[in-house]
């Protein structure tokens, strides 16, 4: 009896291992309300130590600040942070690792700064420490005093000070509409701010041979929706004619960007196109399974069923399979093809895949 056949496990695994089910909409709220236990972040203690030492340094720095006639707008000390700010700046604190001591101050200072507010210099009250992780361009502006600081990559960190609320504007040059502006009202002496920006890098348009797959990719972002239904950051398409694919990328905070990919299909270059399904039911549509390609010098193709029985074999690209096997038509299900071919330039290729028979 075939029942104990091991293939049955493989059959179910193939279909169900990556099977997805959409959870009910309120599930996350339930999880959030079930009090996720908080674990300690190891860095906290070191941060306190650093902070303590830093307060001392900061005091000295501020003291000398008043003494010096020349007011430097940039403070190179990255460790000015007070433990009291922990709550509002959870993100920021966590980015402070002990290795920040070694941060090259030359790199951490804004590449270009423009300061038009002479009166802020005497009483430095607010200092913004900013960590730009992903923006290629960032602008920090103090609205009232029109203090604008532009920061350019590869800058990792900079320290800016001001008496007034700070506006941080981060813009992404590649996607004009993606802009984030945040206001930080700060009445503490020293504060750290993390600017987490939305950045998306789209891949190039593609030129493929007929029958070849094109891989379209987006770097970064969190949610993706392609017009072919895919929701991953990477989709594989096999167009048979010049096609445009549109992707919408969002970052979970409402920022989004749309991009169009053009995939040009060259029918003159040779790759083998093999359909992924066919319907041998004699209705005149898709009744045959056939490889297509122009300029193929030679080809050999096999089709196997799940047990590994060869159900079809051909060495002629013009041959097609009508689904017949042992005097009948095979049942619906998954089959596997293996094709070896030599393209017009004489290169050998092997193409393998699955074909679904639907009756």
């Amino acid at each position: 009896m075939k029942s104990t056949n091991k293939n049955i496990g493989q059959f179910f695994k193939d279909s169900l291992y990556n099977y997805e089910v959409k959870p009910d909409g309120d599930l996350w709220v339930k999880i959030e309300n079930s009090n996720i236990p908080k674990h300690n972040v190891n860095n906290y203690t070191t941060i306190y130590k650093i902070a303590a030492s830093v307060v001392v340094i900061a005091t000295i720095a501020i003291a000398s600040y008043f003494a010096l006639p020349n007011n430097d707008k940039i403070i190179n000390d990255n460790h000015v942070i007070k433990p009291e700010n922990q709550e509002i700046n959870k993100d920021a604190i966590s980015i402070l690792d002990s290795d920040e001591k070694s941060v090259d101050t030359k790199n951490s200072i804004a590449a270009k700064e423009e300061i038009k507010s002479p009166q802020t210099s005497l009483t430095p009250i607010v200092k913004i420490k900013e960590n730009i992780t992903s923006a290629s361009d960032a602008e920090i502006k103090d609205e009232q005093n029109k203090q604008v600081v532009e920061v350019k990559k590869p800058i990792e960190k900079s320290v800016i000070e001001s008496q007034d609320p700070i506006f941080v504007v981060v813009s992404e040059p590649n996607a004009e509409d993606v802009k984030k502006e945040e206001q930080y009202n700060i009445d503490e002496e020293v504060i750290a701010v993390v600017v987490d920006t939305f950045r998306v890098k789209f891949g190039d348009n593609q030129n493929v041979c007929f029958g070849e797959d094109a891989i379209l990719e987006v770097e970064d972002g969190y949610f993706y929706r392609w017009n072919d239904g895919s929701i991953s950051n990477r989709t594989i398409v096999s167009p048979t004619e010049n096609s445009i694919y549109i992707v919408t990328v969002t970052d979970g905070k409402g920022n989004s960007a749309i991009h169009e990919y053009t995939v040009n299909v060259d029918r003159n270059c040779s790759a083998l196109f093999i359909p992924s399904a066919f319907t041998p039911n004699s209705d005149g549509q898709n009744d045959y399974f056939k490889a297509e390609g122009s300029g193929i010098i030679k080809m050999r193709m096999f089709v196997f069923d799940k047990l590994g029985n060869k159900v079809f074999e051909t060495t002629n690209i013009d041959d097609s399979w009508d689904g017949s096997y042992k005097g009948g038509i095979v049942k619906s299900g998954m089959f596997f093809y293996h094709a070896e071919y030599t393209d017009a330039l004489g290169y050998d290729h092997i193409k393998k895949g699955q074909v679904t028979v639907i009756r």
Partner: protein
Amino acid sequence: MTSERKLVRECKRNNPRFQKLLFEQYAPKMLGVCMRYFQDKNEAQDALMEGFVKVFSNIEKFRSEGSFEGWIRKIMVNTSLNMHRKNLKHYYHVDIDETLERIADERQTYDHLQVEDMLKMIQSLPAGYRLVFNLYEIEGYSHREIGEQLGVSENTSKSQLRKARLKLQQMLNIHNIDL
């Protein structure tokens, strides 16, 4: 996936925004895992919830050496098994002939087999068969591991697997699928 490392890092810092992102990224696939262990979606979602709470509270134990998805998946499987645990001792005492009959008349017609149908087949297995089949065939556990997890002997695991396959084959035959 570019953001996995960042997700893990931020979740280790209890960042709620990233916890939500992690949930959104993995929930559908993990619910797909839990669904195989229960007969209805509500039970599976209970397991999923409990699993995610475990993921968040234990995430600092995750070392970035292995696959993160694999780690989450393991938590989901263990959580699902835990929910079955109190009933486990009954599962392996069910009279087999009885259950065979129960399945036989659940004939439904399908145009062609969908993944959803395959899930339903697994869900319709008696719980004892279902757990062993899932663990062995889909999760890839060994009979020894299954025995330890479920508190049964290796031989019980083997015989349950054989019966599960048999039953699934019967169901497939109804749908004209011959493996």
